[in-house]
C-alpha cells in the first residue's frame, strides 16, 4: 500500500478541473484577479488543513482550530495595537499564544484521558466566550484595525516582486505562499525524518503499543496539539493579513475545511497516516472547484449543489480509475 498513488490521482483531478474551468471561462488564467487570490487562499487553507492534520496524526481532532486562530490573532492584534510592535514580532507573540493554548488543550487531554473531541469542543466554547469579551472591552468595532508596516505588502506582493537580476518570480504566486511552504517543509521533515514525528504517527496508530514501546505518548499528545495551535495561529495571521484586520471572527470558517483538506489528502481519521502534500492538494482541489464555479457564474441557487456533486463525481472517478489500474 504505497501512499503515492492517491496523490497523483488528486493532482490529476486538479489538472483536469483547471483545464475544464479554463476552457469554460478563460478568465480562470487571469494572474492578478484569479490565480493570485486563489493561491493565497490555498496557502491559508493549507495551513488550516495542516493544523488539523497534526492532531489527526495521533488520532485526535481539534474542533477549536478556528477559535485557536482567533485567540492567536487576538494577541497579534493586541501587540500591534497596544505595543506597536512590528509585523513579525507581533506574529511571533501570536504564534506563542496559539502554541500555548494548543499545548494547554493537549495537556488536559493527556492528563484526563478524555476524548479529544470533547476537550477541544469545550475549549472552543471557552474561547468563544473569552475572545469577544476581550475585543468588546478593548476595541470599538470588535477588531484591531491597526495595520503595521509590511502588512499591505505581504497581502499584495507576489513572487513577481522578487527578482534575482532579471529573472523574476511568477506574479501569480503570492509571497504569502511562503508562509505555507515553510510549515509544509517543516512538517514533512518532522514526519519523515525525525524521531518525534514518527512517534506521533505511532501514537496515532496504536496508543497502547506506543506506550509499551517506550514512546512518551502523553508528551506526544501535547506536542501534536501544540503544533495544531501554532499552525492555527499562523493561519489566523494569514487570513487577517489577507482580509485586513485582526478581528474576533477570524477562523470562524476554518473547521470543515480543515478536515476536508487533510482527509481528502489521505490523512487517516484514525491516526497514524498523514500526508503534507496531500493536505495541500486536497485543499487546492476544493478551492479550485469553488473558484471555477464562481467564474463560470453559478449563482447561489446551484453553487453548493454543483460543489458537492463535482467533488463526489471527481473522487468517484478517481477511485474507479485507481481500481481499474490495480486490476490491470
Amino acid at each position, binding site marked *: 500500500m504505497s501512499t503515492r498513488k492517491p496523490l497523483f490521482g488528486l493532482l490529476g483531478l486538479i489538472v483536469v478541473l483547471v483545464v475544464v474551468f479554463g476552457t469554460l*471561462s478563460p*478568465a*480562470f488564467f*487571469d494572474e*492578478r*484577479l*484569479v490565480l493570485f*487570490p*486563489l493561491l493565497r*487562499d490555498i496557502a*491559508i487553507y493549507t495551513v488550516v488543513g495542516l493544523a488539523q492534520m497534526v492532531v489527526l496524526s495521533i488520532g485526535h481532532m481539534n474542533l477549536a482550530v478556528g477559535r485557536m486562530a482567533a485567540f492567536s490573532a487576538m494577541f497579534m492584534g493586541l501587540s500591534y495595537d497596544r505595543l506597536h510592535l512590528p509585523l513579525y514580532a507581533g506574529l511571533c507573540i501570536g504564534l506563542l499564544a496559539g502554541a500555548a493554548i494548543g499545548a494547554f488543550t493537549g495537556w488536559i487531554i493527556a492528563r484526563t484521558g478524555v476524548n479529544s473531541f470533547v476537550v477541544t469542543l469545550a475549549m472552543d466554547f471557552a474561547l468563544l466566550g473569552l*475572545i*469577544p469579551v476581550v*475585543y*468588546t472591552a478593548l476595541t*470599538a*468595532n*470588535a*477588531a484591531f*484595525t491597526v495595520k503595521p508596516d509590511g502588512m499591505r505588502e505581504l*497581502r*499584495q506582493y507576489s513572487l513577481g516582486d522578487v527578482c534575482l537580476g532579471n529573472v523574476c518570480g511568477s506574479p501569480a504566486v503570492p509571497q504569502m505562499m511562503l508562509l505555507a511552504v515553510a510549515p509544509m517543509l517543516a512538517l514533512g521533515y518532522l514526519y519523515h525524518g525525525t524521531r518525534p514525528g514518527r512517534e506521533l504517527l505511532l501514537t496515532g496508530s496504536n496508543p497502547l503499543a506506543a506506550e509499551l514501546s517506550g514512546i512518551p505518548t502523553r508528551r506526544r499528545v501535547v506536542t501534536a496539539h501544540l503544533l495544531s495551535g501554532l499552525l492555527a495561529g499562523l493561519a489566523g495571521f494569514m*487570513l487577517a493579513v*489577507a*482580509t*485586513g*484586520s485582526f*478581528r*474576533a*471572527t477570524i477562523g*470562524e*470558517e476554518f473547521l470543515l475545511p480543515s478536515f476536508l483538506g487533510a482527509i481528502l489528502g489521505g490523512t487517516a481519521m484514525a491516526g497514524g497516516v498523514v500526508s503534507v502534500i496531500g493536505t495541500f492538494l486536497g485543499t487546492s482541489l476544493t478551492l479550485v472547484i469553488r*473558484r471555477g464555479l*464562481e*467564474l463560470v*457564474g*453559478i*449563482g*447561489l441557487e446551484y*453553487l453548493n449543489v454543483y460543489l458537492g456533486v463535482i467533488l463526489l463525481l471527481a473522487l468517484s472517478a478517481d477511485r474507479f480509475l485507481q481500481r481499474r489500474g490495480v486490476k490491470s
Partner: protein
Amino acid sequence: STRPTESAAVPTAASTATASGPVELREGSKVKVALVPGGAHPYFQPWKEAARQSAADFHLGGVVFNETAEWDQAKQNNLLDSLAAQGYNAFGVFGVSPTDINTTFGDLKSKGFAVASLASCPAGDTNEADFCLSTDVEVAAYKAAKAAIDAMGGKGVLVHLTGNNVDANTQRRIKGVDKAVEETSGAVKLLPVVADVDKDLQTAQKAVADLLAARGKEIGGIVSTAYNPAVAAAAGVKKAGLPIKVVAIDDDPEILRAIREGSAYATIAQNPRGQAYVGSWALALLQSQQCTMRQPGVVIDSGSFLVTKENVDGYDTERRKTSEQIKQRFAAELLSCR
C-alpha cells in the same frame, strides 16, 4: 410616531433645487455593475429586482446580483475578484466585515473600479469606497427602540435581540438601542442584550421562548434588530399571549404579515431597493468617467421608515419617493459631472 433625530440626516434637505439640472447617464453600455451582498438574506432580495430595473432604465452593459459570499469576508473578496475577472467594473458591495471592507475597497479602487458601499458603511471614520449609501444601522436601531418605548408608554422593561455579537454592525445596533433607552432617563429598563441568536430560526425561537418563560411577565417590549429573532419573537409573543410590543427590523413578507395580524407592533423598514437602484446609477456615472465624487467616501443615508399597522400598505410609496430624492441629491450636490 417617532421624531426625526439630529443624527438622522434627512435626505430630502436640499435636493430639489439644483444648479446643474438633472444628470443623464450618457454612455452606460461599457459599465457592468456587480451588486454583492454579504450573503443570502431577505434584506437583499429587493436588490435583484433593482438590478434588473437599473440595467434596463440606464442601458447599462449589465448588472449582476451575486449573493454567494456566504458571510465570509475572504469568500467575498474572492467573489469580487472573480467578478472583476469576468469583466465587471463597478461594484456595489455590502461588506461582510465592516472592519475589513475598507481594505477590499482599497484593492478594488486601485484596480480602477468604481466602488460603492451599499447598505452598510465601513467601521471607523474612513470610507475607501466612492460613496456609502446605507441606512445608518445605529439610527435604525435607535428608531426601533424608540418606537417600542413609545408603544410601551414610555416605561417598562425592554429587551434587545440581535445577531453576531462580534460584528461591528451589531455593536452599532446595540449602541442605538442603548441610546434610546438612556433618553428615557431610567423609566425604561433594558435587560442584558441577547446576542448571537440570528444563526438560525430555532436558536432564535428557543432564546425567545426561554426569555418569555423566565421573564415574560415583566417584559414590556422587544426590539429585534436581526431577522430570525424578529420572526421568532412575533410568533413567541403571540403564542404566549403576553401584551409585549415587538418591534422588528426590515420588511420581509413574514414580518409584514406579523404586523398585519398584530403579533408585531412595528418594524423599521430600510431602503434596499433604493440603495441598489440609485447605487447602480451613480456607479455607472463614476465608472464611465462622466462624473466624479465631489467628496470621495461621502456617506448618504438611504432612509429608514417606521411601519405600523396603519401605514403597512402605504409606506413603500414614501420610500420610493425617498429614493428619487436621493438620486436628485447625487446630481445636485454629490457628483461633479462633465
